[in-house]
């Protein structure tokens, strides 16, 4: 029996250290449990295998720090992964050795997403990142040497203490490496994180400057030949990349509102009218899956309308036009007229496209647009 889900997310929660700003499901250290966790992942995958299509488009190993996982355990996991056109692994620079890069390549990984965040030592320190700028560069070279031709760098802007000059220096560094893909996020101090406690006031103060930073990021990267294909994501444009489409296919699946299966602690799946989130607690997960049961889950039912609204919300993050056909009842016609007049949205037939300014204001535009 097989289903139709063509996108698989695998959560590897282990980290050497929990960074102050992080609100992902992470587990520090626990090297002794890595093998056992991989066993559990494979058991959960077996349990849900019926949902997956015979051939997957994408597999994404995220974390945590997937490359912090014991290499033997990671290798075993990769070997048991279903075949897919795009296999991405997230990596932290300081964990990427030539041997690890080769192993990833050998085990079928096609794309690596490197958590660079910044190239400024003092800003990395504020973020509590253990990597140093040279780690980012050497990790990148190790990956290239191992044969990776699709590398993504994560950058964070709006770090407390980051002036415009430092932002431009980070963009310069990223551009000089020539990564195929860049993800650029404004630093968010999520409630309850140590970081929000320590830097919340500073972040609030600099909120207005972030408008300039966001515009600078979009301006510099598009001028350098990158395609701003999603609110926070850029890839080298096909014409400067030998015609390759370098968008993250896995993440595109989210933004196009497709079904996906997520396994591991805290992982979220969305299949048809259901969305579920696995328990974020390692012991509970291990014991349930160890006895061939599904892990404890929070289940949310999604109506057709809710999935439609999510499609609008996510689809408008992309540079590709959004096909409104079929979702028209979800849109407030008057608001649409207003947005068209303001030049934030353009419409050609059934296709809605946000202007550059419309995309910078995407949240507000979507809130207006949804009926």
């Amino acid at each position, binding site marked *: 029996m097989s289903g139709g889900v063509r996108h698989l*997310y695998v959560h590897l929660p282990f980290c050497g250290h929990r960074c102050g700003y992080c609100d992902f499901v992470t587990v520090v250290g626990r090297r002794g449990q890595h093998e056992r966790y991989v066993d559990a992942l494979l058991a959960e995958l077996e349990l849900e295998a019926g949902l997956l299509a015979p051939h997957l488009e994408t597999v994404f190993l995220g974390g945590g720090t997937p490359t912090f996982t014991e290499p033997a355990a990671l290798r075993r996991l990769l070997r048991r992964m279903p075949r897919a056109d795009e296999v991405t692994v997230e990596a932290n620079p300081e964990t990427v050795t030539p041997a690890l890069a080769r192993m990833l390549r050998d085990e079928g990984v096609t794309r690596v997403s490197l958590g660079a965040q910044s190239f400024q030592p003092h800003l990395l320190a504020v973020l509590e990142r253990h990597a140093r700028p040279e780690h980012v560069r050497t990790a990148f070279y190790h990956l290239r040497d191992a044969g990776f031709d699709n590398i993504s760098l994560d950058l964070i802007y709006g770090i407390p203490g980051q002036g415009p000059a430092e932002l431009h220096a980070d963009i310069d560094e990223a551009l000089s490496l020539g990564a195929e893909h860049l993800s650029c*996020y*404004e630093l*968010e101090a999520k409630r309850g994180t140590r970081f929000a406690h320590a830097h919340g006031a500073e972040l609030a103060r600099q909120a207005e400057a*972030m*408008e300039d930073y*966001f*515009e600078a990021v979009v301006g510099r990267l598009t001028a350098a030949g990158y395609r701003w294909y999603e*609110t*926070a994501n850029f890839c080298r444009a096909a014409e400067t990349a030998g015609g390759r489409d370098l968008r993250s296919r896995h*993440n595109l699946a*989210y*933004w196009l509102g497709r079904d*996906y299966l*997520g396994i591991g602690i*805290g*992982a*979220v799946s*969305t299949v048809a009218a259901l*969305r579920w*989130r696995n328990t974020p607690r390692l012991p509970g997960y291990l014991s349930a899956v160890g006895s061939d049961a599904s892990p404890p889950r929070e289940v*949310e039912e999604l109506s057709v309308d*809710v999935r439609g*609204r*999510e499609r609008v*919300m*996510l689809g408008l*993050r992309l540079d590709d036009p959004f096909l409104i056909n079929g979702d028209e009842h979800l849109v407030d016609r008057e608001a649409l007229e*207003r*947005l068209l007049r*303001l030049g*934030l949205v353009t419409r050609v037939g059934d296709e809605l496209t946000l202007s550059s*300014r419309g*995309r*910078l*204001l*995407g*949240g*507000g*535009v*979507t*809130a*207006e647009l*949804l009926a």
Partner: protein
Amino acid sequence: MQQDRIRNFSIIAHIDHGKSTLADRILELTDTVSGRQMRDQVLDSMELERERGITIKAQAVRVAWKGHQLNLIDTPGHVDFTYEVSRSLQACDGAMLVVDAGQGVEAQTVANAYLAIDNDLELLPVVNKIDLPQADPERAAQELADLIGGDAGDVVRISAKTGQGVEAVLDAVIERVPPPSGAADAPPRALIFDSSYDQYRGVVAFVRIVDGSFRQRERLLAMAEGTRFEAEELGFFSPTMQASGTLGAGEVGYVITGLKDVSRLRVGDTLTSVERPATEALPGYKDVKPMVFAGLFPTDSDDYPDLRDALEKLKLNDASLFYEPETSQALGFGFRCGFLGLLHMEIVRERLEREFDLDLLVTAPNVAYRVLTKDGREVEVHNPAEMPSEIERVDEPYIRASIIVPKEYVGPVMELCTERRGRFDHMEYLSEQRAVLIYELPLAEVVVDFYDQLKSRTRGYASFDYDIVGFREGDLVRLDVLIAGEPVDALSLILHRDSAYGRGRALVDKLREEIPRQLFDVPVQAAIGSRVIARETIKAKRKDVLAKCYGGDITRKRKLLERQKAGKRRMKQVGAVEVPQEAFLAVLNLQGSK
């Protein structure tokens, strides 16, 4: 009761000079109530009264003293209620004029003393609180004697708190207040001096019988209104309702009418008998017109029906409250309400919020304007948004203000009155320490923050009262506020041309602070007609999007978006601009100060 054994009187006093304590002491001394009962029955707040199911407040209490029937008629104590004071006084033949031995004569004392004199009442000057350490009974007595003409030696010195001298006051009432005149055998006539509404028994009229007598079950006629009804019950308060079957000439009491519509029985009308009608009505009251207006809007538009019901209920017991539906583009459905004055407005607002649990947005108060348009029409304007654009002239109400102040504060008070376009009339010294300043001021300058300013510039020592003296031409303009080119009706103001620029600038600055940035530039302007006198621009937002959104974030992001959407629904829409209620509140607060 024989007419010559009846005395009708009231107590008039400045706020806190001890009117209620004296009333309580009289009830106690005359064995009308015990001390314990008194606190329960007499001093009850309106809320408590309702909890006990008593919705009628005693307006007149009958007590017995040395073979006489004394009717103590209640009067409201504040400047806004001068009109009500005067109609209560018309039911009396005498009044105690009570002054605090520490404070001396205050502006309200003066105003009420003149009212009493105008009504030909016998005045009994009383100095209260002589037990207090800071009391100066001699000075207070001299001020009283100077005020009403007479000898300081005739002023009764009492302490309502300890009871000292209260018997002497009651004796003085019998000796000095004349018994009611009026013909016991003439066709019956009674003056309605107040009314109240009870949900079970309908309109209850408070009456002073002038001629003849009335019987229970008798068919009565309200002469001016032409309303006929049967007197379901007659009686008096002592202090609770006591049915008496009849009320005779000179007596004060109540008539339960069974009427369900308050408008059919107006205060000031004359009651007579259908069978034995009088030919001539008693001199009535002049119809009082509200002078201060404001828009009242529910914070939550769903509460509009509740606000309407609440106003209807208040109106039953407050004939002077005026209201009509008003629709504001910015604030939605509400009511334009007319009040006798600022205190009246405050009381109504407070009762709506406290007793009816409503959350209200109240626009800046304005006065009534009489406008002559260029095409020769005369209109009265109660709402700045309705001010015609082609104006020949505008007249605004003026008051004659009396301000009593210790002499060292004469300077600051004159300064304040000048700032408020006041015209000095004259000044007199009440004593070596205190002066009365008489000014004529536009009412509009007094309804906004005048009283607070007066108090703060005199360390609280000034007291203030006023009479409306008529309408006069003013150099007035309508100041409009425009957001993204749309006039915001609820924020329009009528004000003197000289202060338009400053107010316009302040309003625009405040709105720029309070209105969140939108998806587009929003100009905020203050304008007189088509002339913009102040302008600011709220620059468009340049970023409004959540940085990250992946598979695990979708539900949370969707909920954030739904919250953002719900937040928008709570905003007030001015054209395409979303203005949070708080912005209106901030601006209305700004308008409520100078």
